[in-house]
């Protein structure tokens, strides 16, 4: 199934965005899931700060300026832990 906007298979578009998120120094994120559905891109995963999350938008949008990017990425929690696990 080809993407209606670009005439390309969405798998190739997703692969390009994923590589850009890993290799662009602004992001350097290897663990972000990228799904392309029609003219929409969905990003999922976890990053270490709000700024990192926002950079994902910028890099993905630059890579595919005609698509709409939806950023569903979480910023990781950094609170104190719950009860310890006892290993016997």
């Amino acid at each position, binding site marked *: 199934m080809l993407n209606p906007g670009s005439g390309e298979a969405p798998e190739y578009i997703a692969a390009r965005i994923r590589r850009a998120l890993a290799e662009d120094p602004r992001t*350097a994120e290897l663990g972000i899931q990228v799904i392309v559905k029609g003219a929409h891109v969905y990003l999922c995963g976890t990053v270490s700060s709000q700024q990192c999350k926002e950079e994902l938008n910028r890099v993905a949008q630059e890579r595919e300026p005609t698509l709409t990017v939806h950023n569903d990425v979480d910023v990781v929690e950094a609170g104190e832990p719950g009860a310890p696990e006892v290993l016997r």
Partner: protein
Amino acid sequence: MIRIAAVGDVHLGPEAQGRLRPALEHLPEHADVLLLAGDLTRHGTPEEARVVATEFRDVGVPVLAVLGNHDHHGDAVPEVTEALSEGGIQVLEGDGVVLPVDGHRLGVAGVKGFGGGFEGRCASAFGEPEMKAFVGHTIEIAGKLQSALGSLSCDIRVALMHYSPVPDTLHGEPLEIYPFLGAYQLGEAVDATGTHLAVHGHAHAGCERGVTPGGVRVRNVAQPVIRSAFTVYCVEA
């Protein structure tokens, strides 16, 4: 009981400085030692390593670390290691340390580790030189881990690495990328040395708990997995 705090994949940079510090203020109430399981930085630069050093400086317990693939990205491992050391973080790579804890000896040996995959579905040192180099790197590191673990004279022996020694703790990650997330040879090293606990990171979408084929508990402490600044394991001496 020896209380071991651990976290991996904190991926700190200037934009995230201080993020973990509030939780770390109370670390000595929770733990006797803190293990950092690699990917401490985002790009492996000395500047980011200094952020890490500041974050974990004077936390009240010894801090031991291994580096991860992100910490190698900037081709500045000596400078990154030096910056971490200046913050009181002892970086392990093919060596270990024995710490006195409450009348017992806690031994920790560490390596970065590497990929290659797991028994029956793994890469072999065959064919192109690039493939032989890939697998050879894993075999060399696993050998160093086994040697370092075996040389520790201690009551409790812990293996610290970035890549996973088992597939159990990768559940949640796509099966296709398991060979990039760990290698069975690391698990072999853990099983050959009477190790009590193996701790790793790297697999952000994996799960926390697993066990080696030889019955050693494995814990994936990647921060997105444990969802806190650190987690704590109490091991009976």
